[in-house]
């Protein structure tokens, strides 16, 4: 999006939310108020339209056949080689997957599915260089950041939806997610699962993974989490989540800013002999730990076989321990996918 459009949108939004002087009519004169609203609407329309036009060629409808019939969702190109992000629930068993965009139709092959994040990677081979979406910076996403979803609702044409970030969540109604998700106040419809979620620069910041309350809002997997899946596939041919083999609990009083203390170390796990019960975890790789839920973000981005530094507090001492996560024991047996979502299915062996 051009700087001019961003500037005009910001100016219009600022004008819309500016505080009225004390004693003045908060609604302002009716005519000027209507003019402000009109400017805001035009600025939003312009910004969303620009994002939609720029990203539409990179967004595709993904259809698959499974034993229950045809399944339809949305996907988008992650690179020029025809790799597409979509949802594992869209591609099903991956035996018959097709990608359409306008009048064009390609058959696609399933590269990998990650049951932990719900992401799937598929690829089309005979489309030449494909347009793909640039990636945005997750650290800039905060409540009230404007976002656009571009996807295929039902059997309709490609459609944009506009809204704002409601929050960054790691759980909803007592169920914990695999990593932090963006909760977006954007209305979505069925068929839009797997859609790219974009900032106003047209950069993808996440993948739409689920609706909230019948599509009144949605949860978005950050693109960096989807990239972890793609990186693993590029390196190993499959997703390799790292496993430490520790159980933690929450302390009532934080130690050096963290409430996450190691409770049990699995003697057969890679952390055995390196960590002890009572060690307070302060940081895992780049993820600072403040509470046990931070383990979600810490563990999701671990890769089996990739060394990572873990900073802990042991008594009065503060130690940095190099540590190499292993593959989850159930993953080795191929049982991890069979478990699916359930009580402690992936995080607890």
């Amino acid at each position, binding site marked *: 999006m051009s700087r001019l459009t961003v500037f005009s949108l910001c100016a219009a939004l600022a004008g819309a939310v500016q505080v009225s002087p004390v004693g003045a009519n908060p609604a302002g004169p009716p005519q000027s108020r209507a003019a402000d609203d009109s400017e805001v609407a035009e600025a939003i329309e312009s910004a969303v339209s620009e994002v939609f036009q720029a990203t539409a060629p990179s967004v595709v409808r993904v259809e698959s*056949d499974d*034993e*229950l*019939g*045809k*399944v*339809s*969702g949305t996907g988008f190109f992650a690179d020029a080689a025809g790799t597409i992000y979509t*949802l594992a*629930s869209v591609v099903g068993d991956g*035996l018959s997957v097709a990608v359409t965009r306008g009048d064009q139709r390609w058959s696609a092959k399933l590269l990998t599915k990650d*049951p*932990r*994040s*719900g992401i799937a990677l598929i690829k089309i081979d005979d489309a030449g260089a494909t347009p793909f979406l640039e990636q945005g910076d997750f650290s800039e996403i905060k409540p009230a950041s404007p976002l656009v979803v571009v996807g295929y*609702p039902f*059997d309709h044409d490609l459609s944009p939806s506009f809204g704002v970030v409601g929050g960054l969540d*790691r*759980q*909803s109604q007592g*169920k*914990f*997610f*695999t990593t932090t998700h963006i909760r977006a106040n954007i209305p*979505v*419809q*069925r*068929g*839009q*699962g*797997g859609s790219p979620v974009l900032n106003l620069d047209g950069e993808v910041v996440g993948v739409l*993974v*689920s*609706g*909230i309350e019948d*599509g009144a809002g949605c*949860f978005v*997997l950050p693109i960096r989490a989807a990239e972890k899946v793609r990186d693993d596939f590029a390196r190993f041919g499959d997703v390799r989540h790292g*496993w*430490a083999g*520790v*159980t*933690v*609990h*929450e302390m009532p009083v934080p130690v050096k800013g963290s409430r996450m203390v190691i*409770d049990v170390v699995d003697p057969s796990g890679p952390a055995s002999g390196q960590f002890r019960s009572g060690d307070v975890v302060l940081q895992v790789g780049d993820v600072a730990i403040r509470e*046990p*839920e931070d*383990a*979600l973000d*810490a563990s999701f981005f671990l890769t089996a076989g990739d060394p990572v530094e873990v900073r802990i507090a042991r008594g009065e001492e503060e130690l940095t321990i190099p540590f190499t996560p292993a593959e989850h024991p159930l993953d080795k047996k191929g049982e991890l996918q069979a478990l699916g*979502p*359930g*009580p*402690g*299915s*992936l*995080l*607890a*062996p």
Partner: protein
Amino acid sequence: MNPDIHKLLRLKRYEQPTQDYFERFLDEFQERQRAELLRQPTWSLLWERMTDTLGNFHVPRLAYAGVAAAAVVLSAIILVTQDGRSPAGPSLALNDPRPTINVLPPGNGDVRLPVSSRSEFPPHYVLEARPVSYESPYSF
């Protein structure tokens, strides 16, 4: 009167059930009555209800046997007649417009509808109800 009994009766005089007891009494009574009822087999319940209903008409008990025998004979006649008819006869299963399911040979592990039939159904449009999620985050 025995002084011990007299003392006991005086004590009992002040022993009042709580208000909650009276409020719940009817509910508990009905729950237990229903629980007792559900212990009986279904055929027993049906028989009991039928005899109760028919009893209201003051029909002699032997008449039940006659009616039952007539019903059995009638059913048998209908079934025999149906059996002898051609497939063109009225049959919901035979005239079902839904497509058949082709079960592929064992080993393929796949059950699929014919493509022409499947295309008649609208696709399932995906939007999950919530992200992949778990009960406990305290282990990794």
